[in-house]
């Protein structure tokens, strides 16, 4: 890739005690996705539309424990059973329109997520790669900043501030 503003992807790895085929299905079938594609425990999740194929998209609703509704739109670019898939995910509304990050005007508009699966001895190693697409230099800056937050952890060396922010 040769772009003016290149940025290294963020990578997250995880191992699941399940065969690759099953893990792949949990990423590509709405009846599975609704059991886990939400930000944290206590949420409920419903796929109102799921056309999960290359060029297709899915629209899902997440409801927080206090009843707040959030929507996301996912568009699918590559689906290679049972090895990998590539998609983009956006904040959305009920109508399926893409919304900007309210507090983060410079957050990359386009983030591509790649999921790679590899099975070893009945366990599946998953690698998730987050990569901004054609980011502006401002977007690179925002993404890099978040990465430094990520690796240091907001909490480390920032305890006083974190405690203080809670009181605001």
């Amino acid at each position: 890739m040769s772009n003016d503003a290149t940025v290294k992807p963020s990578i997250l790895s995880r191992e699941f005690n399940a065969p690759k085929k099953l893990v792949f299905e949990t990423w590509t079938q709405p009846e599975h996705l609704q059991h886990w594609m939400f930000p944290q425990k206590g949420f409920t999740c419903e796929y109102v539309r799921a056309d999960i194929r290359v060029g297709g998209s899915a629209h899902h609703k997440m409801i927080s424990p206090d009843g707040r509704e959030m929507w996301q739109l996912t568009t699918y670019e590559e689906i290679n059973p049972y090895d990998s898939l590539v998609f983009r995910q956006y904040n959305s509304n009920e109508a399926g329109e893409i919304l900007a990050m309210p507090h983060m005007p410079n957050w990359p508009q386009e983030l591509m997520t790649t999921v790679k699966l590899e099975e070893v001895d009945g366990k599946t190693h998953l690698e998730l790669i987050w990569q901004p697409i054609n980011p502006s230099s401002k977007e690179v800056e925002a993404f890099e900043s978040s990465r430094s937050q990520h690796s240091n952890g907001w909490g480390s060396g920032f305890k006083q501030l974190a405690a203080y922010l809670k009181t605001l």
Partner: protein
Amino acid sequence: MARTPTTSDPFSAIAEPKRRELIEAMVGKELTVSELVDITGWNQPMVSKHLNVLKQVELVSERKDGRFRVYSVNAEPLKPIQDWVIQFEHLWTNRMENLEGYLEKLQSTEVID
């Protein structure tokens, strides 16, 4: 080390570890530059340089107290960023945990079936 980039928003400003350290030292206090020099152990130009960046993005306020200028943290602009960073940090990690639990449940059900 790369040189400190000039920066125009709070989020980028606090990406620099030294500025995080400075903010951390100032939370809930009003401090002069020389007090900050003592606390951090950095030289005065370095303290002033980072302080200026934080002032520009309004994360630090300046007040005149007699002959001295005292500085304090205005953390309000960081609040939404912190909320957001926490979300970012936890988003995929949490989803992976959801998925792990779900896969376990799924497979134990399959055995029973």
